[in-house]
């Protein structure tokens, strides 16, 4: 019966819309979640002679926070991270993405430094290995070196307290 097809199509559409209401379209899983963090060996922003490698971080739970002095949303996120690092024992590696040393230094001087080490990724190679497509992004890596969570865009206070904090507690209790 041709006169019923508009109704039938509409009913199917409503089903999809209903399911869609309870999903968050912004939640895009990273293909790297559950996979080992990519290999890196980078100098720090303040000292070109000092390098940090992925393997040196094994056994630690840590965050990789991708930022840059040219990134506007990072200014929003940065004070939150500084505050978070002060209140909680957490190791944060900054990944300074496609930036220059003087500007990055000036930026950290102005806005504070929440990082255990701020890694200097001038050409963005490591960022590409991490699949960064926007700054800021943050990865949470567990003791075995596996990426467990990815925050796209700046952290909000809610995300820090409701998502990151419980996750860090679980990861720290893992052996």
């Amino acid at each position, binding site marked *: *019966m041709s*006169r*019923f097809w*508009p*109704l039938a199509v*509409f*009913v199917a*559409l*409503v*089903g*999809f*819309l*209903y*399911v*869609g*209401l*309870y*999903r968050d*379209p*912004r*939640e*895009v*899983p990273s293909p790297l979640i559950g996979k080992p963090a990519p290999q890196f060996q980078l100098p720090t922003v303040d000292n070109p002679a000092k390098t940090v490698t992925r393997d040196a971080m094994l056994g630690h739970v840590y965050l990789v926070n991708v930022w840059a002095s*040219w990134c*506007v949303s990072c200014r*929003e996120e940065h004070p939150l991270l500084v505050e978070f690092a002060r209140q909680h024992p957490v190791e944060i590696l900054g990944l300074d993405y496609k930036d220059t040393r003087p500007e990055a230094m000036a930026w950290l001087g102005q806005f504070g430094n929440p990082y255990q080490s701020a890694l200097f990724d001038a050409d963005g190679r490591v960022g590409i290995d991490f699949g960064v497509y926007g700054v800021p992004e943050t990865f949470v890596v567990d003791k075995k070196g596996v990426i467990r969570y990815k925050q796209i865009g700046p952290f909000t206070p809610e995300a820090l307290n409701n998502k990151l904090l419980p996750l860090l507690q679980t990861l720290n209790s893992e052996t």
Partner: protein
Amino acid sequence: MIPEIGNLALVLCLILSMVQIVVPIAGAQTGNRAWMAMARPAARAQFALVVLAFACLVISMLGSDFSVKYVAETSSRLLPVQYKIAAVWGGHEGSILLWLLMLTFWMTAVSVFSRHLPEAMLARILGVMGFISFGFLLFILLTSNPFERLIPAALDGQDLNPLLQDPGMVAHPPMLYMGYVGFSVAFAFAIAALLGGDLDAAWARWSRPWTTVAWTFLTVGICLGSAWAYYTLGWGGWWFWDPVENASFMPWLMGTALMHSLAVTEKRGGFKVWTVLLAIFAFSLSLLGTFLVRSGVLTSVHAFASDPRRGVFILIFLVVVIGGSLGLFAWRAPKVGLGGRFGMVSRESMLLGNNVLFAAAAGSVLLGTLYPLFLDALGLGKISVGPPYFDTVFVPLMAPALFLMGVGPISRWKEASLPDLRIRLQWAAAISVVMAVVLTFIKGSFSFAVAFGLLLACWIVTSAAVNLWGRIRPVPGVSTSLFSRLGGQSRSYYGMLAAHLGVAVFVVGVTMVKGYEIEKDVQMDIGDTVAIGPYTFRFNGVSEGAGPNYQYQRGNVDVLRDGALVRNMGPEKRTYLVQRNPMTNAAIDSGFLRDLYVSLGEPVGPTSWTVRVYFKPFVDWIWFGCLMMAFGGVLAISDKRYRIEKRKARAAAAASAAMPAGVAGAGVAE
């Protein structure tokens, strides 16, 4: 106090809307004239109450009453007055109130310009519209009340989203909503006709002007939105296939199909089932668009705050309104009957082609918009559908429609002769091909896409010229002046020509921009230059300053041509004080044949910046074409037959008899 008055007005309006649904429709079914007569005053009183509520919100906004939550969320002390007004519809609650204001306005307009309608028909129409207004009132009162108080009051508001602090944004939503909501009239006419079982040519004649008016507003609204995106989003695009844009574009496509289908139903009595369905679809897509924008099921640059409660409410409302009307359609469609027969080649078949193509285009936009949602709901992953899909699907659907646009208006009703059409159009076709090829070569580089776009545009223009000449050419033995013959054509005929020529202008704009635009993202220090086409841009550095509620950094860019200064441009980067987010304000030098577009990126050194420099040939033709289409709509509505109908209707105020057939019937439909 004032917000409470507004709230009370909405509650009273809700009660009134229930009366307006039940009493007139019951009256129409039982033939009770007194009950039917309730429709008019109820509709007008609803309008008055919503105006009152709206005025209350405007007053709260102008007085910066931050004890009203909505005002605190969308305004701030320093916000300039015109944007305080725009802030009334700058957030979710206010924009729904604006929707309602438009709806009750249309209801009142129907109650005023409806003296020629049979009483029962009018009662049903206003009853149906009353139902829609009931749904939206309930939605506002339950989930989105703009008068909700904030206790304790905020010291200052959170300011209007800087993206919306723009003159274009002041006018864009009202225009768009007038169009969106205007399709509710055609919808209500269709439902009333299905309820009453009298789907005749008169029904099409009555709903046609309403549809045209709504379509005209929607065209202007979309055009303003596109122009706004062009100069405020800072990357020079004019259409992004963003879900929110699509939400307004789908009703437009369906409305375009509906306008053409109504012409057939009015003139030939054909396509009745189709027309009813299109009327239902056009408004359903408006509602669906509201759902998509308001529920947050899709991501979009326009992202409004989402709240699942709101989504659930609108979804239920969609089920009742769209599901109900499609069910009614399925039940009543067999009674509608078929229209007159027509040949394979006839104006009917061309218009049918137009309908199918436009409906398919709306369908594919809908599919592309919802596809990410479908996949996600089925657990098949997250994807986003972007311009590549839409461009691939859209062009093949629109190209044949543009071809038909040339042939259709020349074909005869019922049965056209193919050889005759060929003779009449052969010159138009030949000239179009030659012009397309020549124009592309003049531009320097031949590209198939550009040649094809120009071919279609030329085809529309030349076939329109053939059409006009066919009507005004001197007839042997009859001496009339060219002017009197030109004046003898109806305004709706000129409206059709203007709208179709607008499409041609639009196509030229799109084709040229796509084919020949030059975009350069460069890093510039003081004194650096970059050359684009015949122009050289020289960067003179950046200065700082402050506007009423923002600070800005303004670039200073000289544009030179052959060494001579053409224009000094000042692209700005603004940081609004309250929300702290940066905004680009591109500097644009508009011209008839090209736009120069400069926008400031990010600082990369003490005095060097990334700068985007664009050369956009013919880009303004895009919006000018849209305005021409809208102007065509205005001409069509101002046609003599509608004015005569109105005058006659006044003379026979009490008469409920149908009007005589269209007096100077013309336009798309002659």
